[in-house]
Structure formats: structure tokens, C-alpha cells
């Protein structure tokens, strides 16, 4: 009996200490919700996103004067809020738009986060950001490219990444430049999955190319396919000069394997980030995908540069090389926290105003954007991307435009 009473007392004391401790800490901690696919078929992307945001958390919460002009790095915590620390609350969207929406609701109403970021898949960013809009909570997205996300007239949604319309321009200019160098690029096939991301990017590219008088062949497939032979045979039969691939990792890997099995090599294979930027794509099938072209805004930079230091921190955290997707997610998060810092408050309206006033220069960014500045739709108008190529099957190198290129593009596509 006595022992039980003692135990009760100890428990009560522990709870009391826990509660006061929490209350004290809460004054200095700013919670930000991050929704990513931590399970399900896109979990590898979610795991990498989590590592990226944890590195960002470290950079913000601790002093990192070696990172140069990067905002928030110099001192520990947020200077604008008396050195407050940020804490990322991760939530799993399970690869489902409905779950992503529920998680946004939970983060806002129960975790009381001051802002949200995520949710990797465009289709899930679509539903999760609608909840943030309803509750008047800022949502900054760094990686979803479906054009319609910023066409909804939302007031609380901001996006830092280059989007489908920017990508069309990059692809078109790249192809025009290649044509000028005597490479055939007249017939184009667009291969894409049937998700929000796949269809919307494909539609935007198709529309953009049609304006220029090109009429791409459209080959759609159901994402997470068990077999892609029919699509590859269709390509083999139609023989397009350029194949543009829009796929998540699982299908990107299966495409690479099937193309080798069917001995099909398009003269030019141009891919749209996501699956093709996943480190596990390179590890699994990089050696049979030599010469794949991809778009990217990330470059490691010379040793000792802020980007190289960040890449190093990320490698230590995740065990993988930094890729474009993880980098864009991290950049989006930095922009969000920078706005909170400048707002000097966790009041949503003040953060929203600070986001609207964002004007970051290239030297303040880790990604190769021309800056960050939002239009009235919340889209970064200074986002940009370069073309990279997996020449040796192990590492992407920037190949276009010439000003950013480390090597000249190698064509035709080598494969294996």
C-alpha cells in the first residue's frame, strides 16, 4: 500500500514537471508541420524529405557561420523571435490525398503548427493546402510542380519550385538549342502516369509544345505498374526522336529495366525530375540509364561552398547524396522560416505578409534559382532549372545551358 502511494506521488511529480517543462519550452519553440509520404510506394521520397528538413532544422537552430549569406544560418534560432527554435512535426500522407488532407487538419487543430510544408505528390499538396487555406495557415511548398496548384486563387499558398510552365520553357529551349547543333528533335513522345503530377505536367508540356507547332505523342499509363512492356513497344514502333518521361521512382525503375529487356534506346531520353532524381533510381538502374537527361535546380558546387557543406550534412543524415527534390524541399522550408523570422511573430497574417514581401537573392539560396519572389498567385517568379545528364550512370552533371554546364551533353542516349 505504502509503495503504491509512493509510486502515485512520483508519477504525479513526474507529470507536473513534464507539464511545466513543456510550458516553458513552448514559449521558445515554433512548430511547423511537414506532410510527406513516410509510408507507401513513395516512401523513399518521404524519408529523404525528412532528412532534408532535419538538416534545415539543424542549420536554423544552431549557429552555422560557415554557410555564408544563407538566412537563419549565422546565429542559433530565429533572431526575429528572440532566438526561438523551430521544431518540425512530421506527418505521413501514406501516398493518399485523403490522408494528406486529414493530416493537415490534425497538424493545424491539434499540433497547433504555425505553418505547413509538403506534401511531395502534387495530388496531395492539392488537398492538404486546401485545409490550410480554410484555416488561414500559411502553406509553403518547395517541390510540387502541377501548374494548377497556384491557379486556385489561394491566399495562403506559396510555392518556390519551378513549375510545369517553367519546365516547358527549359525543355523547349534545350531542344531548340540541340536542333541548332544538328540533332534531330522533331517528333516527341510524352510518357506519363495518370496521377495529378503526371497528367498535369504532361498536359502543360503538350500545350506549350503545340503553341510552337510541335505535336507530341501522348502515352499514359497507370502509376505503380506491374508491367510496362506495352508502352515500351509502342515507343519502339513509333520511333520518336525525343522521349520525355514523367514518372515516380517505381515506374522509372521498371521503365529502365523494360527498355533494356526490349533493347529500346530513344535517341534522346529527357526526364522530369521526381523518379529520375531519386538516389535509389541511380543505385538500382543508373548503369543501364547512362545518358538520361533530367532537369534540376541543385548543384553541389565547389568544396567548402555553402552548398557543398549542406550536401555533406545531408549525406551524414540520410546516407544518400543530396538530390534535386530534397534540395527543393529544403529551400522551400528555408523560405518559410525566413518569413516567420522577418514577421517576428507566429501570427498567421503577419507570416503571410512577410511571405508576400519575400525577396531573396541567388546568394541567399541553396538552390540555383534566380531568386525567390512571389507573384499574387503565390508562385515564385524567379524559379529556374538547368538540364543535367547521368553520363557515367552514377552522378548527374549539369550540361545545359552553357553558362551553367560542367560538361557538354552527350547524345544519342547510351543506355547500357
Amino acid at each position, binding site marked *: 500500500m505504502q509503495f503504491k502511494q509512493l509510486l502515485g506521488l512520483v508519477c504525479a511529480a513526474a507529470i507536473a514537471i513534464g507539464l511545466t517543462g513543456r510550458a516553458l519550452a513552448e514559449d521558445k519553440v515554433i512548430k511547423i508541420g511537414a506532410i510527406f509520404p513516410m509510408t507507401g510506394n513513395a516512401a523513399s521520397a*518521404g524519408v529523404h524529405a525528412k532528412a532534408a528538413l532535419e538538416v534545415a532544422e539543424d542549420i536554423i537552430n544552431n549557429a552555422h557561420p560557415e554557410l555564408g549569406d544563407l538566412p537563419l544560418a549565422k546565429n542559433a534560432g530565429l533572431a526575429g523571435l528572440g532566438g526561438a527554435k523551430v521544431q518540425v512535426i512530421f506527418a505521413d500522407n501514406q501516398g493518399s490525398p485523403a490522408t494528406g488532407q486529414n493530416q493537415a487538419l490534425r497538424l493545424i487543430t491539434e499540433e497547433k503548427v504555425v505553418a505547413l510544408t509538403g506534401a511531395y505528390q502534387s495530388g496531395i499538396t492539392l488537398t492538404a493546402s486546401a485545409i490550410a487555406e480554410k484555416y488561414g495557415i500559411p502553406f509553403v511548398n518547395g517541390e510540387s510542380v502541377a501548374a494548377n496548384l497556384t491557379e486556385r486563387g489561394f491566399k495562403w499558398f506559396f510555392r518556390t519550385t519551378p513549375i510545369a510552365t517553367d519546365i516547358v520553357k527549359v525543355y523547349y529551349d534545350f531542344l531548340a538549342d540541340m536542333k541548332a547543333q544538328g540533332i534531330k528533335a522533331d517528333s516527341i513522345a510524352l510518357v506519363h502516369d495518370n496521377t495529378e503530377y503526371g497528367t498535369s505536367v504532361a498536359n502543360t508540356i503538350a500545350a506549350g509544345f503545340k503553341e510552337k507547332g510541335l505535336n507530341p505523342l501522348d502515352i499514359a499509363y497507370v502509376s505503380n505498374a506491374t508491367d510496362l512492356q506495352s508502352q515500351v*513497344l509502342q515507343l519502339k514502333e513509333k520511333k520518336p526522336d525525343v522521349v520525355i518521361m514523367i514518372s515516380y*521512382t*517505381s515506374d522509372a525503375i521498371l521503365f529502365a*529495366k523494360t527498355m533494356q*529487356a526490349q533493347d529500346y534506346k530513344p535517341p534522346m531520353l529527357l526526364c522530369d525530375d521526381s523518379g529520375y532524381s531519386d538516389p535509389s533510381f541511380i543505385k538500382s*538502374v543508373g548503369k543501364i540509364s547512362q545518358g538520361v537527361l533530367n532537369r534540376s535546380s541543385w548543384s553541389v558546387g565547389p568544396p567548402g561552398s555553402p552548398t557543398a557543406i549542406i550536401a555533406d550534412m545531408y549525406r551524414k543524415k540520410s546516407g544518400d547524396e543530396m538530390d534535386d527534390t530534397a534540395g527543393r524541399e529544403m529551400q522551400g522550408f528555408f523560405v518559410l522560416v525566413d518569413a516567420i523570422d522577418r514577421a517576428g511573430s507566429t501570427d498567421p497574417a503577419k507570416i503571410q505578409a512577410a511571405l508576400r514581401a519575400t525577396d531573396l537573392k541567388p546568394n541567399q539560396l541553396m538552390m540555383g534559382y534566380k531568386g525567390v519572389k512571389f507573384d499574387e498567385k503565390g508562385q515564385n517568379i524567379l524559379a529556374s532549372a538547368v538540364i543535367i545528364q547521368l553520363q557515367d550512370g552514377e552522378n548527374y552533371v549539369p550540361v545545359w545551358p552553357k553558362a551553367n554546364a560542367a560538361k557538354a551533353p552527350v547524345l544519342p542516349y547510351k543506355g547500357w
Partner: protein
Amino acid sequence: MARGQMSFILVQVIVGGLLLGAVYALFSSGLTLVWGMMNIVNFAHGDFVMLGMYAAFVVFTLFGVGPLAGVPFATLLLALLGVVVYFALIRDIMKGPMLAQILGTFGLALLLRYSVFWWFGANFLSLPQDIVGGTFAFLGLRIEASRLLAGVVALFVTLGLHLLLTRTSLGSKMLAVAEDATAAQLMGIRPDTMQAIAWAIAAGATGLAGALIATFFYIVPTVGETLGIVAFVTVSLGGFGSVPGALIAGLLIGVIESLSAYLIGDVYKDIVVYVLFLSFLWFRPQGLMGKT
């Protein structure tokens, strides 16, 4: 010329569909055994396939050997797991309501999936392309040796399981338990032993399928979700408990999927497959080779 090439590609599509279908049949045979014979819907079936894939991957990374060692290892490992699962979980939930069976095996699926997730991480893994001899051309058709091997093994597994069930006393005992466990027990057959053996065989066949699929497919903890659903369709189309039925159904689904993906577009192939599937069940609910 163009026409000749078109029909040639069509032949390639059909051959590819047959090889795909053989793989569907291969990983469905284990499901048809437990579903048809014990009336248990094993939602963890796809994750058994996934475990077989990881087993093959581990054997390859540790010893640098291909399916020759990976396949037997995966088969034995999964057979063992089948017995453990039977005694630890299935035996008890079989006595419960249907809902307990569904939730029990579904819980098992999540447990297996996320244990692998925790241990191996979320990254996609892959075995080398040429682990079973790459791809060869036969009469101008391109055939992946790994898929051909899986197809041939599927035929042997089907034949083996069919003979086991119809020609051996062990098979008769298993069928007797499936039909009436109490009556079988009165005849001196131990239902527990028979069912444990059935689970060992079913899980072993599934592990074997996984190890073979790993030679041409990517490996990821959630791969069971992608493959699992096909197994359920294959088994119900083939007829519950009918091993040859699963083979024919698998081949049929493989060819229909490939052809419709090629001719009318991939996003419509599921419509074709499921319309045929539903209309077939309308006229013949017991499936292709199921007993009435």
C-alpha cells in the same frame, strides 16, 4: 513493311503477356491453396512475395550468388514462416468470425511490411540485370531469361502442386481436412498438422515466386501492395483452390492486360480486365476450374 512490323510487335506483346501471366500464376498458387482449401483470405500474401524478394536480395548481397541459391533459401524461409504464422495466428483466428480473419492477416501484412521497412529502409533495391543471363532474341522476339525462368518454374510449381493434391495420400488428407476437419479427425488425420503443412507449402511457393520476381522487378517494402491485388483476381477467376485454374487465369489476365495496354492504352487496361472478370463471375461464379 509497316503492317508487317505492326503484327510482329503484336506477337511480342502477346509473348510478353504470356510471360507476365505466368508470373501472376506463380505468385497466386500459394494464395489459392490457403484461400481455396481453408477459406482464409490471406491479406499478407503480397507481403509474403515481398519477403521472398528480400530473401533473394540478401542472399545475393551477402554471397554474391543469384537465384540458384536465393530461390531455395527464400522457399525454405517462407515455408518456415508459414508454419510459424499458422500456429501463432491462423489457428486461433480460424475459430473466430470472418472479421477476425480479415483483420488478423491484414495486421500481419502491416507487421511484415513495416518490419522490412524499418530494417532495410524505404529505398528501392534491385538485383543486377544479367543475374539470370540477360535478354536473348528468339526468332526476332526479345525474351528476358529471368521472366522465362519464372514462367517455366510457374508451370512446374503448378504441375507439382496439382499432383500433390490429386495423386498423393498427403494431398488427399489435406483435402479431407479442408472438406470436413471433424470427420477427418475421426479418420485419424490431424487437422493441425495438415493445415500447418498446407501453410508451409503455400508460403514456400510464394517465397519461391518472390525470389524469382526479384530477378526482374524492383524491390521495395510496399511492392506487395502492387502485386497482391493481381493475385486475388487471379485466384477468383481461376476458381478457389484450383491450382491449374490459377495458371490459366494468370496467363489470361497477363495477355489481356498486355494487349489492351498496347491496343487501347494502359489507363484502360484495368477496365477491360475487370469487366471481363465481373462478367465471367456473373455466368460462372465458381471460376474457371472451381467446383460447384
